[in-house]
């Protein structure tokens, strides 16, 4: 029998919806409670074309950039070249944390250094070509470009800092990684 996993995010968000609906009802009766629903639907419809494009881009990136490509690329890389490559790989790798953390874990296992791992995760978080479309679609170009511009140097910088400060702790990190 297949065990269904509970998606806690949706449970949590649904609870927030109920709380907000209750507040709206208390403040303005059924009318305000319905206004919330109506506004939400309208805003969602407005961004639908953008969202469709974003989902298409995410799907294309997933097919065009494979896990094997990234792992081969970064296998046992280290040093400043490895850190820059890791930034590029992080930017290109599609998927959520359940995708890139397993990859980072296997990179750790195959000999990647602290700087490479920090650069990979940070670039995924700040340069991700699959996250940026959603950001553009939902936050608008002004906030997105400003955010991207201001954090552009962060992934390599954090990678270099991690390597310089904690490079020698990689042995202990690898030792304690739960899967070893």
């Amino acid at each position, binding site marked *: 029998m297949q065990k269904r996993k509970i998606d806690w*995010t*949706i449970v949590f*968000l649904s609870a927030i*919806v109920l709380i*907000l609906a209750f507040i*709206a009802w208390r403040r303005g009766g059924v009318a*305000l409670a319905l*206004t*919330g*629903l*109506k*506004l939400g*639907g*309208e*805003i*969602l419809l407005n*961004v639908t*074309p953008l*969202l*469709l*494009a*974003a*989902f*298409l881009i*995410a*799907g*294309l990136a997933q*097919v*065009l950039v494979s896990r094997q490509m990234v792992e081969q690329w970064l296998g046992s890389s280290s040093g400043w070249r490895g850190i820059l490559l890791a930034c590029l790989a992080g930017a290109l790798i599609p998927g959520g*944390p*359940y995708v890139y*953390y397993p990859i980072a*874990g296997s990179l*750790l296992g195959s000999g990647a250094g602290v700087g490479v*791992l*920090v650069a990979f995760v*940070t670039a995924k*978080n700040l340069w991700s070509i699959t996250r940026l479309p*959603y*950001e*553009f*679609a*939902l*936050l*608008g*170009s002004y*906030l*997105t470009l*400003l*955010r991207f511009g*201001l*954090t552009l140097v*962060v992934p390599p910088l954090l990678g270099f800092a*991690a390597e310089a400060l*904690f490079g020698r*702790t990689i042995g202990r*990190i690898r030792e*304690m*990684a*739960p899967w070893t």
Partner: protein
Amino acid sequence: MDLATLVLILLALILLAVAIRRGDGSHTRAIRQGWVTLRRTLPLLIVAFIIVGYVNALEPQALVRSWLGPGTGLTGLLVGTAAGMLLPGGPYVVFPLIATIYQSGAGLGPTLAMITSWSTLALLSVSFELPFLGWRFSALRLSLGLPIPLLVGLVAHLLHAS
């Protein structure tokens, strides 16, 4: 049509052309993949936008301005950073919420601190990090990353003020 729409559609078309040129059915697999992701995230999207709708209907301007407004200084940056760490869900859930908070009167600095903090420090994704990289790595990465949202917010605030 705004810049965001234009950029996204252009990017989708370029990638689609690359996929088609591969000649191995990459494009149909990609479209199917995108569709699967969309279907899986649709319930979350709908719930997230209902929240956005309620936040708009309840007019939280006064509340937002007092915690995250342009005049809140360091407090606003700290609140923005903390909120970013706690926001649950993927980009399609979090970005609409942040957009609503921004439109309700949050300052540019606190807003950017929140986006950056959710991007790099979200506690929900740390829960995926721990099983694969261990707490020592998470602690190291988070402590290096903690000042980043505050700095980004500060620079944005100064840019905006000048």
